[in-house]
């Protein structure tokens, strides 16, 4: 099953390498990984998307906890949460008809065209990973030139938090 794990990490040199190394060393999957500082400059927040059976996920959270620089973590997928991913996608858009179709499609997905040339559109879409997958699927007709995805960021709904 797919899990989204949020981690508060001491912002020390090498601490990210430790997290990534753990996954490589123990043969766990990383589907996506995002990391950036928080409002507290001494800590980074990671969002990790992984999959595995319950036993594997239990080991992943336990092993992450064991890393000295991991301050706190939370398996977001265990309760209500919001997840978002950002995608920038560059597509060929040459004929007038073609350009209209791409634009319509972007509108449906609430994407924004953020760069235009005579031959291309670059579109920004934000949403769940599923939504971004669906957008790529919908654009299959138009030839996709380049795709950049940020990886998932997530946060728990309601009162639940992952803070110090």
């Amino acid at each position, binding site marked *: 099953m797919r899990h989204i794990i949020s981690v508060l990490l*001491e912002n020390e*040199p*090498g601490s990210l*390498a*430790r997290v990534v*190394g753990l996954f490589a*060393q123990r043969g766990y999957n990383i589907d996506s990984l995002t990391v950036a500082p928080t409002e507290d400059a001494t800590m980074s927040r990671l969002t990790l998307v992984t999959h595995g059976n319950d*036993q594997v996920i*239990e*080991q992943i959270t*336990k*092993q992450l*906890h*064991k890393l*000295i*620089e*991991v*301050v706190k973590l939370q398996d977001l997928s265990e309760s209500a949460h919001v997840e978002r991913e950002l995608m920038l996608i560059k597509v060929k858009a040459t004929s007038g008809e073609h350009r209209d179709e791409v634009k319509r499609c972007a509108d449906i997905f609430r994407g924004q065209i953020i760069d235009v040339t005579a031959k291309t559109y670059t579109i920004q879409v934000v949403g769940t990973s599923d939504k971004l997958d669906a957008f790529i699927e919908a654009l299959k007709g138009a030839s996709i030139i380049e795709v950049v995805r940020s990886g998932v960021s997530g946060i728990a709904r309601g009162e639940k938090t992952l803070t*110090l």
Partner: protein
Amino acid sequence: MTSQNTKPEMLSGAAMVIRALADEGVEYLYGYPGGAVLHIYDALFQQSKVKHVLVRHEQAATHMADAYARASGKAGVVLVTSGPGATNAVTGIATAYMDSIPMVVLTGQVMSHLIGEDAFQETDMLGISRPIVKHNMSVRRPEDIPYLIKKAFYIAQSGRPGPVVLDIPKDMTMPNERYPYQYPESIKLRSYNPTAAGHPGQIKKAVTALLKAKRPVIYAGGGVIMGQAAEELTELARKLNYPVTNTLMGLGAYPAADRQFVGMLGMHGSYEANMTMHHADVILAVGARFDDRVTNNTKKFCPDATIIHIDIDPASISKTINAHIPIVGLVKPVLAAMLAQLEQKKAQPDAPALATWWQQIDEWRAVHGGRYDNDTPVLKPQAVIEAVSRITKGEAYVTSDVGQHQMFAAQYYQFNKPNRWINSGGLGTMGFGLPAAMGVKLNYPDADVVCVTGEGSIQMNIQELSTCKQYGLGVKIINLNNGYLGMVKQWQDMNYESRYASSYMDSLPDFVKLAEAYGHVGIRVTKPEELQPALERAFASKDQLVFLDIHVDPKEHVYPMQVPGGAINEMFLSKTKRT
């Protein structure tokens, strides 16, 4: 003395390293000098509190420090230079990591501004050691040195112990740049705060389950040894009159001579220990990690058992075998809490069920009982270990290398006290035995320290005979010389129709002459009747290193041995018999 108006002392980074070790109470530092750590060595030279032991290869320094930790419970400390000095220490760090042994390793590093430039003797030691340490750090400001050293000891020794590497760039130790020195009394980290006491509710549940058991067993491991809890374990076991088995790492946690002890369990465990485990209805696992050398096929593991698992590391619990009653905590306070509850409760163990259970166990004991064929003109390795056990009254510190000799030592030496059996279980490092014996002997000069080894393993760190001479380390080397990489040969006998691919060593040295060349005494034993006099000669003195080159039966196998892929109770009992 008030510290308010006394100005802190000003020390160089190098002096701070040594001073912090002294303030931590470190007596010995095991190491080898080189360019990146010369400032530190110079600071060492200028004081006398911390003594340095110069080994002949950095691997030996790590094993010495590691064995000191296994015997004393306190972290051993290593100092090596950058590059090859640091990489030579890697096997020793991994050995300590796999067995959860506290150790602090100080590695030199090139000057900060050269890092990343492939400078002379630069290796990324933080990167190399990351998967084999509990934690690693580097010094970025000389004034942080006291804090970082305190932090290294705190992390190495608390929770589940393990090795910590501190990488020190040379420019952090400049002799002429001084900084205020103050050694922190304690350290608190917001991201690391291991629990000590177990959850009271879980402990209650565990006691209830234990008292209900009809076929109980206590399975104790290395966590009891390093957690200094042998006393509590023994008290609990005696109070309940339950059988006890120890892992390879747990030998000595419960006295081997006691009737309730059923021997080691696992791959080369006793028949009765493995049978007791397999048929148990309640297993109390204490500081043991259900290693694959214990469980054999996890799918067939102990089908009827309710498993209570006490471990300080949540990741050890339900990793390979699901625990029904997990208790996260240090074994010592958790066992003490269990004892206190037993005291309170009026309930007693089920006496009739227990009587039947003991009767069954005694029947299993009669089946194999560690018997081996000793009716031969060639000396049997098992007989040698039994003789060593007798002459040292089961009180010696016994270190070992890796192979058949290690298993014979584990099976036939009677370990009645904790912290006396010192071997590499998790990594299985050949070359561990001699330096380990040295680390123990240096710190316990009045004790008998025995290194059980094989002609293959001893050659992996044979150069340390020179260190032994320099520091007068009178260890007794029991070289069970079978002329083969015996453990490999045994597997080739059992699984490869005796095709001995590279398991025979030609051109072995004359070990007696070799010992003499290093300034020690060497004795060769080739016949059974020569053994006792040789042992008596060897153990007559405490400070003479004696190398006993004992020629034993090259055909001997270690039994019992679990059948691959089988349950814990499926074993070969001899070359011709299996369960």
